[in-house]
């Protein structure tokens, strides 16, 4: 192959390189992994919805392996993942702490009365103040914290049964054994 023929192939090679770079960005699931992984949560303070007048902060789950689920009743994926949370709570796999994000108290109470309450404690964040401490990019998001307060898992978007069975439950078992 002459130099001229090789050079004729150069645009094709470049195009393939760029396409593969873009395809990697398109198909990787990095956006589904939150930014809190491996870090301790910043402290925050919100009102508890289940016990009015009392604050909820990160000391709520201090010293225990816990799941923190940030949800809202106006968010369809939150409603979709609710049966999964109910199942986890029913089996007593992990204590679940709920943070109701930018929602109305009456809507939350009415929803939990109808669909069941999987939460050990519910905090109410009507103005979205927990956004930066939890590195939220939307709702729902779910975090698993260890006994040391470090976030070992931060999932963006709704949980799926496959993910719970293959990642979350084994992780909780490992963290409990630590």
């Amino acid at each position: 192959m002459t130099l001229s023929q090789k050079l004729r192939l150069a645009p094709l090679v470049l195009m393939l390189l760029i396409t593969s770079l873009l395809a990697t960005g398109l198909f990787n699931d990095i956006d589904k992994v939150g930014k809190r992984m491996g870090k301790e949560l910043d402290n925050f303070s919100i009102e508890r919805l289940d016990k009015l007048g009392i604050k909820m902060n990160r000391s709520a789950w201090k010293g225990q392996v816990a799941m923190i689920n940030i949800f809202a009743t106006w968010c369809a994926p939150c409603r979709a993942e609710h049966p999964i949370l109910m199942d986890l709570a029913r089996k007593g796999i992990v204590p679940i702490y709920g943070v109701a994000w930018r929602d109305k108290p009456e809507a939350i109470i009415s929803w939990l009365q109808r669909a069941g309450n999987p939460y050990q404690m519910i905090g109410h964040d009507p103005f979205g103040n927990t956004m930066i401490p939890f590195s939220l990019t939307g709702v729902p998001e779910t975090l698993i914290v260890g006994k040391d307060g470090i976030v070992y898992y931060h999932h963006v978007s709704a949980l799926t049964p496959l993910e719970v069975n293959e990642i979350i439950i084994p992780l909780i078992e490992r963290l409990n054994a630590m």
Partner: protein
Amino acid sequence: MLRVLCGFICLVSISSAAFCLNIEPTLPDAAQEQRARQLFYQVRCLSCPSEAISDSPSMMARSMRAAIRNRITEGKSDAAIREELLMHYGDAILMTPPLSSRTWLLWFGPLLALGAAGWVARMYFTASNTTVNIGKK
């Protein structure tokens, strides 16, 4: 009668625009509000990454604007707020990510691509000229 009807239709059409207005509580101190607005232009919207939070009516952008205003009233500097956002969301949270070992390709990638294309074009035309010259001989 027709005038009244036309006037009513016009009023109804214009008033629907009021639903688009997004009135947010601003900071009482004008200088602090100005600082907040400057920061809004620098922070990327999380649910609409192609725009800054200054331009977005989304709930995530509104929450971020409220969080930034809160931090300003708490007395945090612009640099401290930017640093906190970088720590929680990474480089992509800023509309102009800082130049670092992880972002150099983002900054210099287009220049490199342009250089590579120029080099290929030069080689291609040089090779074509050589072929033509050899052919003439």
